[in-house]
């Protein structure tokens, strides 16, 4: 294994900057590495693009990005989900500048070439100039492979990528568990917070599996919630709170192990008194005791962060999506989730979930700005002394396989970061 030094760190190939228990700070600061990451990771891996609730019917669309490529995720007339590069085949103008909506198709504003929801070129104004020059059938929008699991929709530019189900592997079990927070109803996107920070995307990738920072960075949030919520999040000294390396760069961090599987409820855990008002509203709406219990226990989400390499985390009760903009700028989306069911039942539940989300997440939350300040500081500090590594060795000495065979350590350990960086190293080594 090559060690990096001040003399060599700027000359080593990117894959040599990951040493298992530490990585080089240059990985956050080198624009050339960023360009390679876009090509080798974000344009080859399965990238999360949408949740199925964001595309409720034929004609629904969402615009987003896969690596550097602007894309539109659509549901076509047959109900098939497609990911189309948001670029007219004529002269390259973007077709759609709305984040979400409903459309019959997409017409370029420049010369009015029009495309169907399936990406096929439908119409060209004054087509006589193209007679004998080209075939419309060859000029559909560039389409990405698109597959989904458990309502999570992913796309890839890599025609040779393994099937999504294989890439997810043992993650699928945890996606199933995450969706149990619908409380018997499907999970639905309620709204999205968006914010930027001036740091490399991998700093946020680390944070989604960093239990160690929580009581320090989020002390002011801990002080602002009720004692029961604070107690529920007091995982620092709980030996049953663990992180598993699930393979392919994915990991799961179980902060509240008793809420890992919300469907496994022996009835012994009392509902928190702070939800008495919600319980009363659900009773008035006609929900039975078992349903109320399912919904209320799920208000805080599941007890884990499921970190999917490279761009999405299913974080307790929301999705955390990252989009690298440049080597030192990243956009984060915090996607609030709720239940999709009858308004009289899910209305009060979702209101509770929205307020809890606003309390912590988003650019003015009680948690996010503090995280963001930490990430800014990492980016600034990592410019110094390039021979000093970024340490990801916490818990290496106590990492053991779980019964399922997953490398496992305490929830405050850096097992998930090591898993992500091992995948980063694999993908960056692959020519």
């Amino acid at each position: 294994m090559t060690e990096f030094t001040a003399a060599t760190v700027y000359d080593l190939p990117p894959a040599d900057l990951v040493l298992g228990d530490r990585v080089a700070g240059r990985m956050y600061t080198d624009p050339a590495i960023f360009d390679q990451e876009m090509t080798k990771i974000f344009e080859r891996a399965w990238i999360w693009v949408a949740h199925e609730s964001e595309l409720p019917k034929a004609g629904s669309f969402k615009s987003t990005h896969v690596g550097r490529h602007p894309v539109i995720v659509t549901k076509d007339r047959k109900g098939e989900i497609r990911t189309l590069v948001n670029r007219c085949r004529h002269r390259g103008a973007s077709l759609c500048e709305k984040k979400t909506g409903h459309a019959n198709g997409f017409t370029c504003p420049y010369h009015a070439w029009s495309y169907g929801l399936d990406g096929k070129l439908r119409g060209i104004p004054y087509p006589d100039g193209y007679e004998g020059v080209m075939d419309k059938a060859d000029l559909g929008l560039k389409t990405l492979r698109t597959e989904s699991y458990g309502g999570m929709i992913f796309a890839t530019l890599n025609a040779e990528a393994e099937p999504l189900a294989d890439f997810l592997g043992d993650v699928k079990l945890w996606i199933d568990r995450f969706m149990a927070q619908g409380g018997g109803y499907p999970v639905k996107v309620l709204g999205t917070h968006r914010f930027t920070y001036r740091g490399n995307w991998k700093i946020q990738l680390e944070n989604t599996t960093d239990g160690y920072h929580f009581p320090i960075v989020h002390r002011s949030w801990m002080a602002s919630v009720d004692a029961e919520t604070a107690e529920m999040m007091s995982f620092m000294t709980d030996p049953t709170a663990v992180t598993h390396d699930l393979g392919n760069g994915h990991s799961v961090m179980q902060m509240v192990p008793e809420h890992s599987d919300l469907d496994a409820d022996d009835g012994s855990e009392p509902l928190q008194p702070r939800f008495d008002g919600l319980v009363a509203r659900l009773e008035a709406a006609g929900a039975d005791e078992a349903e109320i219990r399912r919904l209320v226990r799920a208000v805080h989400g599941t007890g884990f962060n499921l970190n999917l390499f490279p761009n999405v985390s299913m974080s307790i009760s929301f999705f955390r999506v990252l989009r690298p903009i440049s080597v030192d700028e990243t956009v984060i989306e915090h996607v609030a989730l709720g239940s999709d069911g009858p308004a009289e039942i899910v209305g009060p539940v979702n209101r509770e979930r929205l307020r809890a989300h606003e309390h912590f997440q988003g650019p003015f939350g009680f948690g996010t700005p503090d995280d963001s300040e930490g990430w800014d500081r990492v980016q600034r500090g990592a410019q110094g002394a390039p021979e000093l590594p970024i340490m990801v060795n916490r818990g290496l000495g106590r990492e053991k396989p779980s019964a399922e065979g997953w490398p496992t350590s305490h929830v405050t350990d850096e097992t998930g970061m090591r898993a992500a960086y091992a995948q980063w190293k694999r993908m960056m080594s692959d020519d």
Partner: protein
Amino acid sequence: MTETLTDPRVVRAIELAWREAALLDAKEYETWQGLYAEDARYVIPIERDAEDFDDVLNMVNDDARMRGLRVRRMTEGYAIAAVDSAITVRTVSRFIPTDVDDRSVTLKAAQIIVAYKRGRHDLWAADVDYVVRLGASAGEDRFARKVVRLVNADEAVPAAGFLL
């Protein structure tokens, strides 16, 4: 429109908005909190045209309890974003009174904030809706509602260590 900017009731509402701007730039959050009525709402929505905030996601949707918690967070010294927050200078102007009587003034305004931190200036532009409840004297005027509609409300904004 019968309401005018020189109406003494409107002048009082504008003065309250300017007093608030000065307090927020000075990060005097304890005093700032006192400008709000107990039943007031302070909202920064994500949907610029939202009027009903409870069933949608907002950046901020604070009642008195949440304002109190927020002030504590901003002043207790443990929130690293607040401890090291940007220096702000804000301008509140382009006032349009829309509803005026002896009890309250409803006012629209433009707010520009320049936030400076570590060599960079961030610009925050917003339309602001105020409802000011008039007291027996100007010192007893209180906000009953403030809604800050950022021009880029549904886009990515910097994570902030200050209030708008």
